[in-house]
């Protein structure tokens, strides 16, 4: 069903965060998010050096079906973006937690890591959404 790796942190807005342990994190959208959107055809990423605030709009994912905003899951500075997404956005569908990562942040406030959802809490968010859709 929905894949939610245990080692990642999540936001209710369907971003995942991997703590790289060196003051940086990698960010992407979850398996549930890519599956709900369907075939992804376009991604707008933040730019290198952008300073993002927690919860700020940090890009857009467009599938054939719909456009969806992507929000910064933590406060920080963008230090890398996944340029492969520009030409092959479909890798988000194929590998949301791997090749389909969005960008890396140097985080400004490590305390924010503590209020990320764990996999179990995120799954509950997903189940609630699925119930309200049904």
């Amino acid at each position, binding site marked *: 069903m929905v894949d939610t790796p245990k080692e990642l942190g999540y936001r209710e807005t369907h971003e995942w965060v991997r703590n790289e342990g060196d003051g940086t994190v990698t960010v992407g959208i979850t398996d549930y998010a890519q599956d709900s959107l*369907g075939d992804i*055809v*376009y991604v*707008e990423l933040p730019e290198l050096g952008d300073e993002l605030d927690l919860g700020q709009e940090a890009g*857009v994912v*467009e599938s*054939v079906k719909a*456009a969806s905003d992507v929000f910064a899951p933590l406060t920080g500075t963008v230090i890398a973006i996944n340029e492969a997404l520009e030409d092959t956005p479909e890798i988000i569908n194929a590998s949301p937690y791997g090749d389909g990562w969005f960008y890396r942040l140097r985080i400004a406030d490590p305390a924010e890591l503590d209020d990320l959802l764990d996999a179990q809490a995120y799954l509950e968010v997903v189940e609630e959404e699925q119930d309200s859709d049904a």
Partner: protein
Amino acid sequence: MGRRTPLYDTHIRHGARMVDFAGWDMPLHYGSQLIEHRCVREQAGLFDVSHMTTVDVNGSGARDFLRRLLANDVARLTTPGAALYSAMLNEKGGVIDDLIVYALADDSYRLVLNCATHERVLPWITRQASGQRVKVREQTDGAIIAVQGPAALVAMQGAFGEAAAPLASLASFSSIRMDDWLVARTGYTGEDGFEIMLPAAAAEDCWRALVAQGVRPAGLAARDTLRLEAGLNLHSHEMDEDVTPLEANMAWTLAWDPDTRHFIGRTALEELRQRGGYLTLAGLVMTKPGVLRAGQLVRVAGSPKVGVITSGTYSPTLGHAIALARIPDIGAREAVVDIRGRPAPVRVVRPPFVRHGKKVYN
């Protein structure tokens, strides 16, 4: 739980992502709408469109009744099996629904209408029929299967053998009987293909026989991108009860001659045509990255009026965004679309965008 077509269990077995569509549980896709789309353009795809509304109109007054009810003229249907695309208008000239009407025999017609308009369409037709020498009856015990794509004919021949022999010479927009099936050379994809109206009990066997020929099930998501590439309108997007055919690129479906035929909405349309100045439906093309979406505003230099996108998508065949939009009719070749607050330049073209697998706009 929504209403189910006779093929509901078949969709579940094929791994469909089901979605609510106007109260029906319908397949959105079976894994990837892009693959399904491509399959229809290059080979053949299979759609369950049993949710569409089917209404039979019979009786000695049927022809006269439909000549008043529909903006296109059923007098053009001179042979049994012939079909016609038409709008059904209200007195203001607004489009209550668009439909295909089939001449089944003398005094006997079948209308296939949209699903989403069902609640308003049935009372309208019934009211217009009162006092006329016609019987209006909705058919609810059938199924409709569309097989679409360049390989559709070969698949039908492979699946149904001798019975399908007459299909090779079946003209576009005509239909024939195959036992108790009605098979029409019509569709909603811009490709060759057939729509099969058949009893519910026969639907699954028909579906399986076509799948066995390599025809791939395709969902509503692919149906929408295919019809948009083909420049075909979708009711409640390109037109509705407040939009006339003149504003929806449907003038070609209005049969003005003979001028003694007073179809519903005619007077209002004649006034609008006289007055002019209305927005018209055009195609938009954006080759830079991004996707055009319904509701985005469109501006053209030289007109103070603001247009709007009625349907927009990423075109799988062309690899960029396309849209239908209602815009000022001043012959502009360029326009600017407001995408989330940012101006995006687009080209204005004449739909369709794709026919028979190929780019066709200029």
